[in-house]
């Protein structure tokens, strides 16, 4: 029986064994596993092997990250410049095809349409069947048609708004693609988005480090919220950031004069820095009120808003902060009575939970419920003038260790307790404390002895 390399569908019925007497191993023809990137002759069993499973999860998660970028653009359609289109390629692993964006007017236009297509779905299902990804994950790798419809509507409205609003001077880029004011933006936007973390790091002049991870929503979200670190970049390093300069004049944020109508239904929290990210925005406009005392930018901003920056007084200390998971300052033992970390639910066990005054509406699973109950009791007691009981004394941790292979832990604890009692009775000098002496080697001792 010859074995040939096959790069196609596996033979569902592996050829029956001929000369081998092994019953368990059925020799099947070689197939190529796209996920593990190797040829194997294990047939249908291959997809259950742990190595394959781990490669599959890597494979899928890699693709997922790319998909999430596409999904971002699904939620926030943004126009795509023709010269950038060639960079926006998307390889669909299920269909084994490259999807480019040439000729598409919006970012990921073709990709979104592809991900919603029936062909893609078919290929996706086949892939999952073949490589054992779990059929319930189909939805993670496709886009629903309803979403596509919504996205298309948004695109259309964007386009129409771009046409209707002739003032390209607004911070958020809503202009059509041939808007010369915003022309320079796009080129740098994509570069910025692609190399954002590196560029932010390099351009930050101060000691502030940007967060190491990067939300998928880039720095623009439809609400115009802005990443704090990018604020610093704008404020202090205009030289490295062309769009800010080229468009700053045109995107002057003289908010008292300009009123832009908002596209979306919601009123999003407004970050005073959003004008800076306006050049990145995906077309959502921001409602500006004339009566709001919007503050114009200070210092080096060319009309862009500027958030005052706190200089870090001391260099980064080892104390840690919220990002590194240090203990919060308000729970530090100022009273030396609270030991628990914020997330310790065991504290609730110390508190009698059957309070009659417990509110019926309170959700028992809310954050910090245990803490809240405990603190309420403490506050009431304090009000009444009682001393808050400190129920965490030095002995709350078991501080005895015994050989406990024999007998139960209780016995060892009893032993410990008895010994402690004895110690207390006899005073602290009952035992001669063992003096710790530096190690003296035998040679030294013999030398000393001589």
């Amino acid at each position: 029986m010859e074995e040939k390399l096959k790069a196609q569908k596996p033979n569902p019925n592996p050829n029956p064994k001929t000369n081998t007497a092994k019953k368990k191993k059925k020799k099947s023809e070689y197939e190529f596993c796209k996920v593990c990137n190797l040829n194997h002759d294990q047939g249908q069993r291959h997809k259950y092997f742990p190595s394959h499973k781990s490669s599959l999860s890597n494979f899928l998660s890699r693709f997922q990250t790319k998909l999430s970028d596409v999904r971002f653009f699904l939620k926030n359609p943004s126009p795509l410049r023709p010269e950038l289109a060639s960079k926006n390629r998307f390889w669909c692993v299920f269909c084994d095809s490259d999807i480019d964006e040439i000729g598409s007017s919006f970012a990921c236009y073709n990709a979104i349409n592809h991900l919603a297509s029936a062909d893609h779905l078919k290929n996706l299902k086949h892939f999952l069947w073949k490589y054992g990804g779990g059929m319930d994950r189909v939805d993670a790798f496709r886009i629903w048609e309803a979403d596509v419809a919504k996205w298309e509507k948004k695109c259309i409205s964007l386009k129409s708004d771009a046409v209707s609003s002739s003032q390209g001077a607004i911070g958020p880029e809503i202009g059509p693609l041939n808007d010369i004011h915003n022309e320079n933006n796009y080129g740098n936007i994509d570069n910025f988005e692609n190399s954002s973390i590196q560029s932010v790091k390099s351009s930050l002049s101060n000691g502030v480090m940007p967060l190491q991870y990067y939300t998928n929503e880039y720095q623009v979200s439809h609400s115009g919220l802005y990443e704090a670190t990018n604020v610093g970049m704008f404020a202090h390093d205009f030289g490295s950031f062309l769009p800010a300069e080229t468009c700053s004049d045109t995107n002057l944020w003289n908010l008292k004069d300009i009123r832009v109508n908002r596209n979306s239904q919601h009123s999003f929290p407004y970050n005073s820095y959003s004008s800076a990210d306006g050049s990145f925005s995906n077309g959502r406009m921001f409602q500006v009120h004339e009566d709001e005392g919007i503050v114009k930018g200070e210092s080096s901003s060319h009309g862009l808003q500027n958030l005052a920056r706190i200089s870090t007084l001391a260099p980064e200390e080892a104390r840690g902060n919220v990002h590194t998971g240090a203990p919060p300052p308000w729970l530090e033992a100022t009273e030396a009575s609270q030991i628990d970390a914020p997330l310790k639910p065991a504290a609730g066990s110390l508190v009698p939970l059957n309070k009659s005054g417990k509110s019926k509406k309170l959700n028992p699973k809310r954050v910090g419920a245990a803490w809240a109950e405990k603190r309420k009791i403490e506050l009431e007691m304090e009000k009444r003038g009682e001393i808050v009981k400190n129920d965490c004394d030095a002995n709350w941790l078991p501080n005895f260790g015994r050989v406990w292979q024999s007998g139960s832990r209780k016995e060892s604890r009893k032993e410990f307790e008895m010994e402690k009692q004895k110690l207390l009775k006899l005073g602290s000098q009952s035992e001669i404390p063992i003096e710790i002496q530096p190690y003296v080697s035998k040679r030294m001792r013999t030398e000393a002895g001589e």
Partner: protein
Amino acid sequence: MSSYLLTVLTKKQEVDTIIRDTIDKVPVLRFGRASDPVCLQLDNVLSKSAREVSKFASVALVDIDSNEIQVYVKYFDITFIPSTVFFFNAHHMKMDFGTADHTKWVGAFHKKQDFVDVVEVYVAPQKLNDFKASALLL
């Protein structure tokens, strides 16, 4: 400017107290200084909405120029002001605002309603027994 409506905290102990003793309400702490224009804008919004959210939130301003507060400035890694930090039952509440920093909100709010919306995100899932609203919370 609006500090006659909102308490201004300058001591660490005051901040500790407000975080620890506010039970089942969201303490909203604005870290900034009263002379900064963007802080003023935010304070304006906060003071206007403080009464509306008073059932489930308590708003306070923290002066970052105070020495004792520097512990908090370092802990929360506050580099831009105003920065607003939210808590609930002595837990620091993080939320995905759409920016990379989930631990605090940097900048001002545009409208009162925006601020109220944000606070409601923190509070709603705690009051109700379903956690769908807490999808934004981290």
